[in-house]
């Protein structure tokens, strides 16, 4: 048991246990001091799952309150805190780190044939920074919460709110550096650590999507960091920056905040798009249609994403001229998004499509993201936005992108790479069932909210006119189904760790360097640095080579 030969092949019965990143050493210390990108990915997986559960509990309380038109479960102050903490936990502590920090960390070095990321210690530091930020924010929540909305609009946040704004702001400020350092690490890793022969246009699209995401992380996050610093300085030292009473301008805060926070939406969705490209190609047994278009559309989304922030201020006193420019620029984002959707659809065309669990999530992503994207055009249009601004239509729109898009992609990634990460297969039947439950629950939760918003129900109120009750009850019922849909995978994935059958190196017969290593991968990923001789997704050229060898 002690002398584990590193060069042994996997899968042969009767061989000694192969060293992998999970069994190379044991104990809490070996995890907390690890610099292995795979273990750091697992650390993130555990941390963000905790915040996902926390954010989910807040969401459940919100939906419970909204079952009835009266404010009967919580007070209006408590309701303000609930939707704020739901947003803070889900956006900053779950969605932004979700796919990059877990799957990006785990997979990017393996996909490019490297032993680790460029800066492994910095990578571990990112996780600690995330955790410290999490502790601050969690403390702010436990000590009474924060009620400004996740957007922290000044001067309410900088002057008037009596909740724990400063503590939460410190938490998010610290967290931002975790995001910056992860993005920086990925950029350097992708530039400098690629295996011989792995040219830019042979990279998996997952890597391209993460490159675009990382660019947003290093360019956008510092701006929200300085905005938070300025809010804190105004709150603590009474500097005059945003508060009109001190000579400042509240709209400046909104500009600075959305300069980051709109691109942050693309930090959340781009990695999911990368996952979908991998999964669609694998389960269609086909090359991705229009590889360079998908690759460049990721970069286009990253660049255009920085030019559209003003669409959050159509009704905030921004000039009409600026509003028109931002409206047109916002429409432009639809182009690269549509390019992706059309290319995925074209990849499915005449492919040998099979409907395993990851594929179900990926297909769900395409449909729900399309609905979310198209309703975004309603909001990008100046005149309709005046009607829809701050209604449930907006809430439904961004949940279609964030939950229907980003989390669907996250679940697809989880089911696609779980066998690689753990070496175990999960029960496929349960996985398909959970995917269906999530899809039904999601649509029942959020589709009625489009109607509610169009009828005029504003967001962020805990009482509403009785005629909106039917649709709200539907939404709450959907949320309950959605909750069940998220609990089922939690159970069977944990179950699979102990009882799941061994996955083998490549259960999906997928292409990509990460599938050429045993599952779970050895500590340094590859015995020898691989040499890449073909493009990504070469599914047609040599169909099922591994099976052919076995036979």
């Amino acid at each position: 048991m002690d002398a584990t030969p590193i060069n042994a092949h996997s899968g042969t019965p009767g061989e000694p246990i192969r060293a992998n990143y999970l069994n190379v050493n044991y104990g809490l210390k070996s995890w907390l001091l690890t610099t292995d990108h795979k273990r750091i990915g697992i650390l993130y997986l555990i941390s963000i799952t905790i915040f996902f559960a926390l954010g989910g509990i807040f969401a459940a309380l919100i939906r419970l309150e909204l079952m009835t038109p009266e404010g009967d479960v919580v007070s209006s102050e408590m309701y303000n805190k609930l939707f704020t903490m739901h947003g803070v936990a889900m956006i900053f502590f779950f969605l932004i780190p979700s796919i990059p920090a877990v799957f990006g960390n785990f997979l990017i070095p393996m996909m490019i044939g490297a032993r680790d990321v460029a800066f492994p210690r910095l990578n571990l530091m990112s996780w600690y920074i995330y955790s410290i930020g999490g502790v601050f924010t969690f403390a702010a929540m436990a000590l009474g919460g924060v009620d400004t909305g996740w957007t922290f609009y000044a001067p309410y946040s900088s002057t008037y709110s009596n909740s724990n704004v400063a503590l939460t702001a410190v938490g998010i400020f610290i967290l931002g550096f975790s995001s910056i350092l992860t993005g920086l690490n990925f950029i350097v890793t992708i530039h400098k650590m690629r295996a011989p022969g792995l040219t830019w246009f042979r990279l998996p699209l997952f890597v391209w999507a993460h490159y675009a995401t990382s660019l947003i992380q290093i360019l956008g996050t510092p701006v929200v960091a300085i905005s938070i610093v300025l809010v804190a300085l105004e709150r603590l030292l009474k500097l005059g920056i945003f508060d009109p009473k001190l000579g400042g301008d509240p709209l400046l805060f909104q500009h600075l905040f959305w300069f980051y926070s709109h691109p942050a939406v693309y930090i959340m969705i781009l990695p999911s798009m990368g996952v979908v490209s991998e999964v669609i190609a694998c389960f269609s047994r086909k090359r991705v249609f229009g590889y360079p278009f998908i690759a460049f559309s990721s970069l286009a989304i990253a660049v255009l994403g920085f030019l559209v922030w003003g669409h959050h201020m159509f009704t905030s006193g921004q000039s009409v001229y600026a509003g028109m420019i931002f409206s047109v620029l916002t429409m432009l984002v639809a182009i690269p998004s549509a390019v992706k959707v059309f290319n995925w659809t074209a990849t499915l065309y005449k492919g040998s499509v099979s409907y395993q669990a990851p594929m179900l999530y990926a297909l769900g992503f395409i449909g729900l993201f399309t609905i979310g994207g198209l309703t975004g055009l309603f909001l990008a249009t100046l005149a309709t936005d005046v009607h829809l601004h701050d209604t449930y239509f907006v809430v439904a729109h961004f949940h279609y992108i964030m939950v229907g898009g980003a989390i669907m992609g996250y679940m697809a990634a989880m089911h696609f790479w779980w066998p690689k990460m753990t070496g175990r297969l999960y029960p496929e039947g349960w996985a398909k069932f959970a995917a269906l439950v999530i899809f039904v629950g999601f649509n029942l939760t959020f589709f009625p909210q489009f109607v509610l918003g169009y009828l005029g129900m504003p967001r962020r109120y805990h009482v509403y006119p009785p005629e909106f009750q039917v649709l709200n009850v539907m939404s709450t019922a959907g949320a309950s189904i959605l909750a069940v849909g998220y609990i089922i995978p939690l159970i069977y994935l944990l179950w699979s760790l102990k009882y799941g059958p061994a996955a083998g190196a490549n259960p999906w017969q997928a292409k990509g360097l990460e599938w050429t290593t045993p599952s779970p991968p050895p500590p340094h990923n590859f015995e020898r640095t691989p040499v890449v001789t073909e493009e990504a997704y070469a599914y047609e050229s040599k169909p099922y080579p591994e099976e052919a060898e076995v036979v």
Partner: protein
Amino acid sequence: MSETHSVLAHQFDDLEQQFEASTLGMWAFLITEVLFFGGLFTGYAVYRSQYPLAFAEGSLHLDYRIGAINTAVLICSSLTMALAVRSAQLGRRRSLIGFLLLTMLLGSVFLGIKVFEYSHKYHEHLIPGINFVPPHEFIRYHVDPQQLYVFLSFYFAMTGMHALHMIIGVSVLAVLVVLAWRGRFSSEYYNPVEVAGLYWHFVDIVWIFLFPLLYLISRS
């Protein structure tokens, strides 16, 4: 040869790849820093265009001679930092330590002058949020004290954020001195000195923008 291997981290194939990665990493970080200060400069630009006279008046309340001395000190420190990197490249340990210490000294002189300047502002009751009292007489333009308050807020936010970066820079140099003392650097391996140099020059350049924007408005 064994010396070379001990400084090569396991994830890299050779020292050249390691050097390129660490340099690119620092450049990427500096881009982040540009955007961080960019937020401050944006706010400055907005309010300067809204309150041009108050910013000119506020600028006259700063002592441009002190600002100029500090600018000269920082430019000299950039020179000594560049010489420190050069010494590291040539593997001259003693001159590396000497130039690093000299750079730290100049950085500390800058910070010392800054402390003197801040305390002067305190005596003039010009620190927003702590003891701001509108001045009895204005130097050139009679402006709304509220607008002067905004200028001073930006002065302290921007120079304070810059000073924080200087303190971090001096601390990084202190660590480098210890490492150089222990002989960790050679002409083959000097990445930390190189990237710390990039950071130091960046912080200096920020000051090169801050000095005219804060001290030299409407001085003619």
